[in-house]
């Protein structure tokens, strides 16, 4: 698919007397971007990798080989944070996209005031995690938070609890927040995708009198597959990076139950008084490899299935 796309693009490109490229102009156009990229993205990546083999104290750097990697392999908190981040990055996309798809289908038939609703659903995504985090700390407040207030009003007194204070449910509670934030975004995207489908296809399925579930599974999902997969990957990548929300609500607590790799790296680099930047760099390097591998595997898996089906 990507091949045909790039081929189409290549054809669209102008051929300015193909033998003579305006190299001066090309370099001038790319220079600022690549200067910034080299200095503030590429160089830091290599420096972090270099750090990971050293002890990096404010005035002393010492080569220690793979010692940091050995320590990391036995660092229980790190693996705990990897597990938490992966739970988040796997649960969130599924929850967000499936709920969004069901809602989008329910709304596929046009409803009055669509524009207004679209705007309302999109709002949570635009707020910073700092603002959202503070609001949800209140919603989860044991005594007067909205979550417990609603449960009590429904007579489910026994279900009320300290949502982010209890190690057993703190992580699901935080995952719930990101789901609240991002479902609307996914829904708006899916609605756009549904509306861009030729309506004959869906009408034809209706005439054939196939059931709702079958229609969803055999007609609609295959048609919007690319959008669905993109949304899943996008949500996955976002959750692998998550920091702000955790930092504002729980700081990784209680008992590391919500520690993510981002918060742990930050703590080791800037909070704990070890002053060593080498070890957190090792965390970053290993995590970098894990994220790249995960994203590549995901895209590869999705490609593979595409090939099998068509």
């Amino acid at each position, binding site marked *: 698919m990507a091949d045909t796309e790039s081929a189409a693009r290549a054809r669209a490109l102008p051929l300015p007397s193909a033998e003579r490229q305006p190299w001066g102009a090309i370099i001038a156009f790319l220079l600022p971007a690549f200067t910034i990229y080299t200095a503030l993205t590429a160089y830091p990546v290599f420096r972090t990798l270099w750090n990971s083999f050293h002890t990096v104290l404010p005035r002393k750097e010492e080569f220690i080989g793979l010692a940091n990697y050995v320590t990391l392999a036995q660092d229980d908190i790190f693996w705990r944070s990897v597990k938490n981040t992966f739970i988040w990055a796997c649960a969130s996309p599924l929850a967000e996209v499936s709920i969004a798809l069901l809602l989008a289908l329910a709304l596929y038939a046009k409803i009055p005031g669509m524009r207004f609703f679209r705007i309302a*659903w999109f709002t949570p995504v635009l707020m910073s995690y700092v603002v959202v985090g503070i609001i949800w700390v209140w919603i989860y407040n044991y005594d007067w938070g909205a979550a417990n207030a609603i449960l009590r009003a429904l007579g489910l007194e026994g279900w009320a609890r300290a949502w982010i204070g209890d190690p057993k449910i703190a992580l699901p509670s935080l995952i719930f927040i990101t789901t609240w934030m991002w479902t609307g975004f996914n829904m708006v*995207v899916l609605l756009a995708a549904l509306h861009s489908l030729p309506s004959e296809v869906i009408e034809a399925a209706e005439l054939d009198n196939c059931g709702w579930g079958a229609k969803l599974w055999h007609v609609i999902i295959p048609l919007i597959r690319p959008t669905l997969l993109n949304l899943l990957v996008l949500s996955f990548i976002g959750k692998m990076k998550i920091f702000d929300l955790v930092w504002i609500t729980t700081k990784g607590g209680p008992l590391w139950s919500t520690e993510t790799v981002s918060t742990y790296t930050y703590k080791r680099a800037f909070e704990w008084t070890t002053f060593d930047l080498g070890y957190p760099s090792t965390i*970053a390097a290993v995590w970098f490899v894990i994220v790249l591998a995960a994203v590549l595997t995901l895209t590869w898996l999705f490609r593979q299935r595409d090939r099998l089906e068509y």
Partner: protein
Amino acid sequence: MISRAFLFIVVTVYTAFAAGPFLWVATMSLRTTSEISLDHYAWPEKLHWEKFPQAWFNSNYSVYFENSLIVVVSAVAILTMVGAMAAHCFARYRFRINRLLYFVIFSAIIFPPQITIIALFQTLVQYGLYNSLIGLTLVYIAVQLPLTVYILESFFARIPADLFDAARIDGYPEWHIFWKVSLPIALPAIATTVILNTILLWNEFLYAVVLITDEAKRTLPLGIQRFMGDQLEDVGMIATGLMIAIIPVVIIYIFFSEKLIQGMTAGAVK
């Protein structure tokens, strides 16, 4: 008819769920903390507008606001220019390593921030750019560059090539083709990236918390966190502080909602 009613209920419940928390904060921002502690969910009886100037002046909100404004405006301005130049080049010129270079920049979209942030901290300290708005601005440009190039490139690539051939035959220098042909046509896409980057950077927290510790240099998200720490139990005051942070975003959103939704969804829809 029943399905219509069911639909209406679903929509209403979901909308209340999505927007409710903000409405709640908005009501609290106009009530005093002692009123709030009597009943957290009452409608404000008397509107305490005076809490807004109080929150503004009692903390350093004006400083945070100004810092955020400086950083975001300069980062977005430079970002748009640098990104548009690169995107134009990737979309318009056919040279051997075009796709390779594009991929190099684009792939940075999936980098987890940790892989650069520790070394960025070290580097900025070395060059005296730690705790400086200039340093933060430069980092923000680098962080948003891949997404900006990605959105703009896909738009530039769809401009018909004939336009450029015509300009070239007329003897326009390459820079003029970019400045007078590409940019004006691409204005809608550029507006999208400008609004998108503005919101994302306005909300940015991780890089700011690592690279800024000086009270006078804090951006708004850091300021809110600080404000929350200071007020602690004063829920009413924090709610007012939150509203001050939310309002600019809401204003941008009211005017540019369509553009923004387009920008946010550009990456998701092919």
